[in-house]
């Protein structure tokens, strides 16, 4: 018995020298990286080398992903405890973002006065864009916290008439800006959809959920451009376990077993780009992470012009044909980009408005002046 227990102590070492890097599923999220410190007499004397070795052993053991997942699994299943900063466990296994839940019920991030000033300017910009034949739309997808408010812990279900979302809606309406508040639209879809449009265990809408907005937006844009745009149509749907961002909260929890075991739907599309549908607009999209699910259909490069861009939080620039590389907004001549584009779309979910409009307010005067 004694030697069996000693054998157990040897497992990490055995694993270290026998397992390949692919043996275990790596951990998701950001982890402390420890660089190797070369041995030297001074580093040994001041214990820096020993401390580095201890950290290396602790952080780089090949068995660590398994160990971490076992620990997280036990904590989650036994105590509903999780090792993730911005997370909230709701009813029926729903996971929410704590900060977004807070923004829904209790906390204000937006300042009404400065928001009103910005939205007024945005209205001017929208008018100028339309005058120049450019498409403009503000899209507000509901956050999961808004759509499934009944699944939130009791404390977060309070209604907040002064939430960021309400302030934004009011300000947009007062300034007659064309915007889509998709909350009621998604409530109807949710009542009838047989597959998740928002996953129980992700922060965002699913690929399937985003698909409705994608089609809605492209149809609207196509009408605006007289039906000249390539047409996106569904070829088929594929049932699968979630992939990518459809379980992002859950993936970052680093558990062994899935929490949400449902099937998810993944649409496959076809493009109709026949003779009269060859106009590919240059689209500048400004927004938050809800855009990633729109992009994940990988169809936008066939519909949008090559030099269309996505300005993530108005800080990082992604090109329509290559999402692997990003650039800083400072590298972009934003006035030139807006002047040369055919469409501007702002997409921002209901409760992720902390920091909105992310620096656009500093450029908007310049844009108005240029378009005038």
């Amino acid at each position: 018995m004694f030697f069996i227990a000693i054998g157990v102590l040897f497992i990490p070492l055995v694993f270290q020298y026998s397992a390949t890097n692919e043996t275990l599923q790596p951990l998701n999220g950001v982890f402390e990286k420890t660089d190797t410190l070369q041995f030297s007499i001074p580093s040994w004397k001041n214990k820096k080398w020993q401390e580095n070795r201890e950290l290396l052993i602790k952080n780089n053991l090949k068995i660590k992903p398994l160990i971490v997942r076992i620990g997280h699994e036990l904590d989650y299943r036994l105590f509903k405890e999780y090792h993730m900063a911005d997370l909230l466990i709701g009813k029926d296994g729903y996971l929410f973002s704590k900060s977004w839940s807070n923004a829904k019920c209790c906390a204000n991030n937006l300042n009404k006065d400065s928001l009103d000033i910005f939205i007024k300017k945005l209205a001017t910009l929208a008018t100028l864009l339309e005058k120049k034949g450019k498409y403009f739309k503000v899209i507000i997808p509901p956050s999961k916290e808004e759509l499934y408010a009944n699944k939130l812990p009791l404390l977060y279900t309070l209604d907040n008439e002064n939430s960021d979302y309400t302030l934004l809606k009011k300000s947009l309406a007062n300034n007659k800006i064309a915007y889509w508040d998709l909350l009621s639209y998604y409530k109807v879809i949710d009542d009838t959809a047989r597959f998740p449009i928002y996953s129980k265990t992700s922060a965002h809408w699913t690929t399937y959920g985003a698909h409705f907005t994608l089609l809605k937006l492209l149809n609207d844009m196509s009408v605006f451009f007289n039906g000249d745009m390539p047409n996106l149509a569904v070829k088929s749907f594929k049932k699968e376990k979630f992939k990518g961002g459809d379980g992002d909260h859950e993936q970052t929890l680093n558990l062994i077993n899935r929490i949400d075991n449902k099937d998810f739907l993944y649409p496959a599309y076809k493009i109709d780009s026949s003779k009269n549908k060859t106009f590919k607009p240059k689209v500048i999209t400004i927004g938050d992470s809800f855009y990633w699910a729109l992009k994940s259909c990988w169809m936008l490069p066939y519909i949008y012009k090559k030099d269309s861009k996505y300005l993530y939080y108005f800080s990082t620039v992604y090109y329509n044909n290559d999402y692997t590389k990003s650039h800083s907004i400072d590298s972009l001549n934003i006035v030139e980009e807006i002047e040369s584009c055919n469409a501007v779309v702002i997409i921002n979910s209901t409760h992720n408005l902390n920091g909105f409009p992310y620096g656009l307010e500093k450029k908007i005067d310049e844009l108005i002046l240029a378009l005038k």
Partner: protein
Amino acid sequence: MVFSSVLFLSVFLPCFLACFYLSPQFLKKWIIVFFSILFYAWGAPVFIFFLLGSSVLDFFISKNFEASNPFRKLSLFASLFLNVGLLCYFKYVNFFVTNISTLGEYFSFNEIAFKEVLLPIGISFFTFQKISYAIDVFRGENKRLTSFLDYLLYIIMFPQLIAGPIVRYKDVHLQIKNFSSNNFDQKLQGLYRFIIGLSKKVFIANTFALIVSQINALGLENTSSAEAWLGALAYTFQIYFDFAGYSDMAIGLGLMIGFKFPENFNFPYLSKSISEFWKRWHITLGSWMRDYLYIPLGGNKVSTKRIYFNLVFVFFISGFWHGANWNFIVWGLFHGLFLVLERLFLSAALKKMPVLFQRFYTFFIVIIGWVFFSMDLETAFVFLKKMFAFSSLNLELSISVKSWSLMLFGILFSFIGFNKKTELFLNELPFRIANLNTSQTLVIFPVFLFLLSMATIWIMNSGFNPFIYYRF
């Protein structure tokens, strides 16, 4: 390197045990010494030479302790001077220089410029063992060790090297001399004991430590009375499970390699008086102080006033031994004061009270004592003021279900030995478990294996693993 670290559990311990059990008998002592040197050198790379050098010197001085040697008294003095001198230099010189400098500044002298002296890990523990060896051999209670390897084994055996238990020479000299493979029949018991200690440390002490750190993070100004009490209570249990857990691990490791170290804790929070507390808390320090300080000062065979002085003096030294700071001195004197008060009248008064009240009194005094122990003097007084202001009963900490469950288990475990029978049963538990029949072992062994695996998982998963007694 602490026992509850990934490096120790996943690399050092398995490698050591493999080398130890696979090596022939004549090499086993060498293996222990070699790994002990590695263990100490890992955390104190420069001081290992100091430890080895002073041990060589001590060993040769101790050759003169035999009754026939005319220089035996001088040699004892030299040995004590060497060990106490080194302890004073490394542990107390910063304290004295800082205090003299502060006092000097008060009288408009310039601040004393000096380079801070670094404290070698475990110096308080191995110095006491060296003194124990010198005095026991000098008194003729036990024969001196003729082999330097044996002497080194006694001083630097890694299980007890940096945080005790303080093993008096008389406790182990026969075990060192008669070291043989027959001593390994308690290895399973040792393993169980080690796992119990590791569990105490990782699951319970670290949970209480998290509460303590959360309350410390609030800042003294923002701490409510309720939070101050929670903090004091959490520290009370943290230090117990931290130190008792470490002692269990040390005793367990000792048994695995054929040594039986003395017990260090026996349900101290069940004590009915402070004097009983010191028979149950850090028992090996208490025994050492009694044998090598209190009795040489005259013990109980002196006048009543002198006894009181001796008690206070011993506890002053005990406090100062824990750390070179005024708060440790006050903590020691605080306990000494209650020992004197108990001798004067308190003990007689308490005996007329229900046992529950006696236990409550002791626990209360101990909690107050830990406040002095855990923070500098100025902060301690402000903290105590907060505790007794009862101004705000707000508890704004978020404590998870897991933490509450583990803390409740810890509290329950601290008070479970409520009568002699239960106490004895629990103290003998590792021995009883190790001697179960095969079918019973098949049930109990997986439980311990599970605890060992879980503790390792917790350590790997968490960056929070403080150890209080490591700094002494």
